[in-house]
C-alpha cells in the first residue's frame, strides 16, 4: 500500500520531517519516564510504536488555526505523549487489556478547548501530587497502572473483571487485592486532601 497514491515520495518526506522533528523530544521523555519500568529496549519500542500509531492516526490530529509555531509544537508533542502513555499503560496492563484497547489507545485527540486552564493546576491536583509522595511504592504503581481507566468518553467507567484479572496476573497478586490496594491509596489521598485543604472563610 502506498502512502499516497499520487505522490508517495512527498508523503514519505513529510513523514521523515515529522519524525526527525519530534524524535529527540519523545525519546528523551520516554527514557526519563519509562526506562525504570521498561528498560532501554522497551523505551525504543514505545517510541517507535508511538510514531507508527501517530502515522496511522494522523487524521485524528486536529490543530486549531494558529500561526504560533510553539503552540502547535506543544500540541503535537502532547498528542504524541498521549499515544505513548496509552501504549505504556497497555504494556503494564498485560495482553488482555492491550487487545481491548487496541482502538482506544489511539483515540483521537479530544476536542480543542484551547487549554484555557492548562497552566492553572487546581489545588486538588497539587494536593494529590503531595499525597502521592506519602504512598507506598506498590500503591503508587497500582495507581499508575490503573490510571486513565476512568475516562469520561468511556461507556463503562469501572475496571472490568477481565481487565483486573489480567492486571492481577501481571502484578502477581489477586484482583481483589489490586482493588483493595487502589481503594486504600485513594482513601489515603482523600484523607491527605481533607487534612491539608484550607477551610474556606
Amino acid at each position, binding site marked *: 500500500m502506498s502512502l499516497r497514491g499520487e505522490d508517495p515520495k512527498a508523503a514519505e518526506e513529510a513523514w521523515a520531517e515529522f519524525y526527525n522533528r519530534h524524535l529527540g523530544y519523545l525519546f528523551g521523555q520516554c*527514557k526519563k519516564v519509562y526506562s525504570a519500568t521498561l528498560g532501554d529496549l522497551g523505551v525504543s519500542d514505545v517510541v517507535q510504536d508511538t510514531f507508527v500509531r501517530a502515522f496511522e492516526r494522523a487524521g485524528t490530529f486536529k*490543530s486549531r488555526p494558529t500561526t504560533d509555531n510553539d503552540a502547535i509544537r*506543544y500540541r503535537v508533542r502532547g498528542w504524541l505523549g498521549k499515544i505513548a502513555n496509552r501504549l*505504556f499503560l497497555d504494556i503494564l496492563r498485560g495482553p488482555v487489556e492491550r487487545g481491548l484497547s487496541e482502538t482506544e489507545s489511539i483515540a483521537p485527540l479530544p476536542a480543542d478547548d484551547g487549554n484555557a486552564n492548562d497552566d492553572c*493546576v487546581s489545588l486538588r491536583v497539587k494536593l494529590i501530587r503531595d499525597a502521592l509522595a506519602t504512598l507506598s511504592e506498590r500503591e503508587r504503581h497500582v495507581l499508575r497502572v490503573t490510571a486513565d481507566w476512568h475516562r469520561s468518553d468511556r461507556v463503562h467507567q469501572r475496571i472490568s473483571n477481565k481487565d483486573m484479572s489480567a492486571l492481577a496476573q501481571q502484578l502477581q497478586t489477586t484482583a481483589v487485592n489490586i482493588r483493595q490496594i487502589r481503594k486504600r491509596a485513594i482513601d489515603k489521598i482523600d484523607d491527605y486532601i481533607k487534612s491539608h485543604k484550607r477551610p474556606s472563610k
Partner: protein
Amino acid sequence: MKRPRQDTRDEKEQIQFEQDLYRALRLEGLLLPETEGEVRAAEADDLCGAPPLALRDPRTVLKRVRSKPHRTSSAGPVASPEIEDNLARAAREGGKIPPEVEREMQRDREAAERKKYGNEG
C-alpha cells in the same frame, strides 16, 4: 474491626477525581506530558541522551508500518487524504500555508475522495 469506607462520590465527581489523579501522575513524571503547558515545562528539562541508532532513520519506521498491514486495518486506509494532509500539516508545524496551497490541497482531497468513492459506488 475497621469497616471499609463507603465511596460517597457520585459518578461525575469520580471522573473528575480520576482526571485530576491522572494529571497529577503526569506532573509527577510518572507519565508523559499531554497538555500544551505540560509539554512546555517538559521541553525546559535538559534531557541528555541521543536516540539509539536503530531509531534514527525514519524510513526504518516507515518500513515497519508497511510490513504490518494488520495494524492499519482498524485505523482505516493509510492512504486517506485527510491523514496525509494532517501528517504534512503536523510536519510543517505551523509553517504558514498560503491560501492558494490550501485551496489546492482541498481540490486534491476532493478529487481523491471522488475517485475513491466513485470507484466503490
